[in-house]
């Protein structure tokens, strides 16, 4: 088979070529459609990537402290010194109170503080700390402990607003004020509340600035409203030691 035969054979092979129905405009339209589809796909991909990156990056860029959020309910004072956030302050106070209580009452175990900004939470009715209102204490929470009877807790509240010192001793079987060297006043009170033994022991310290700290011990676990017992697990003497502990920076 010669090269010429191959050449002729190839030419003959296309002799029954079907008619060509080709329109350049249709082809151009198809290309333009393809291009716009590709552009849309790229745009969607880029938008998805931007949203994904933003969702990951924004939480890190935004301020984490509640007090530094825009529109926070505590007005920023230009004269106020910069201080640690309320959450950190509450956490430190809890750690220091737990340490102090452990040293003072060696029979207690599993001592731990759990304080949060705002008013107290009362389980099991609420599961999270509610939003802070203007009249709420700065922070509050429970100092958990376990004695020979079982687990219970002390209630702690600290702040300027919302802690009325009026009628603190109302109904108390014992109530006395103790003047402190720094000018603050510690008030100790015990309440029987109709029972033969002390049902509630409460101590409050009022600073000259108006800042109030209150720690109370109950004949039940205030964190769970359960665990009823005959008397309080911690008496006013120990509560006074806690509230006057110089290691705790209340203000």
């Amino acid at each position, binding site marked *: *088979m*010669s*090269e010429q*035969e*191959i*050449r*002729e*054979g*190839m*030419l*003959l*092979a*296309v*002799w*029954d*070529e*079907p008619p*060509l129905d*080709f329109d*350049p*405009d249709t*082809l*151009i339209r*198809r*290309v333009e459609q*393809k*291009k716009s589809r590709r552009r849309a796909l790229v745009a969607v991909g880029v938008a998805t990537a931007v949203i994904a990156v933003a969702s990951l990056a924004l939480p890190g860029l935004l301020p984490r402290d509640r007090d530094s959020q825009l529109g926070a309910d505590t007005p920023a004072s230009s004269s106020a010194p910069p201080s640690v956030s309320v959450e950190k302050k509450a956490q430190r106070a809890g750690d220091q109170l737990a340490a102090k209580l452990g040293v003072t009452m060696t029979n207690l175990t599993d001592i731990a503080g759990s304080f949060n900004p705002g008013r107290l939470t009362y389980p099991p009715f609420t599961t999270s700390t509610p939003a802070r209102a203007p009249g709420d204490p700065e922070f509050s929470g429970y100092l958990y402990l376990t004695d020979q009877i079982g687990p219970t807790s002390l209630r702690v509240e600290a702040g300027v607003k919302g802690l009325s010192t009026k009628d603190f001793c109302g109904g108390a079987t014992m109530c006395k004020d103790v003047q402190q060297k720094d000018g603050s006043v510690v008030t100790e009170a015990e309440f029987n509340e109709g029972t033969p033994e002390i049902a509630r022991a409460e101590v409050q310290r009022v600073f000259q600035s108006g800042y109030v700290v209150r720690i109370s011990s109950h004949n039940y676990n205030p964190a769970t409203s359960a665990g009823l017992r005959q008397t309080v697990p911690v008496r006013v003497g120990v509560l006074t030691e806690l509230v006057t502990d110089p290691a705790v920076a209340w203000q």
Partner: protein
Amino acid sequence: MRKADEQGFREFAAANAASLRRTAYLFCGDWHTAEDLMQSSLMKMYVAWKRIKDLDNLIAYARKVLLRTWLDEKRRPWRRAEQRDGELPDAADATVDPDTTSAKLWARELVHTALLQVPPRQRAVLVLRYFEDLSVAEVAVAMGCTEGTVKSQTARGLATLRTIVEKLDNSSGRVAS
């Protein structure tokens, strides 16, 4: 794209679509696939038209794109080749000359059976050399290889084609020239 460029592409496509489809048919052996290959090649050229419109030999570039498109198509692992095992009913055509018909049928056989058995790159060289009448240098440009490779591929392709045609002729009783 500007209107003038678009018009230039339109004219080029209309003038060369048929010739590109014929070449594609000799590559793949099927008119439908050939039309797809031709359209895909022209679409690729349209996308790059701004860049290529001023080339000296646009049709050579188009052949190169067509060849690449076909080789790419063959390389695709998911490509499903059409199975041609169906029998078409014979129908008499009164307008054809019986003397020339046998030659044409043999030529079709050459493409459908013999040429399609030649390896793709050798087949491409044979089509470009003997159907498109390109020189060795032009085929080397179209295939993106050296002239030496074109020559060796041509020799191998011819040898393979002759062997297959010989077998076909022996089986059909026709004497190979």
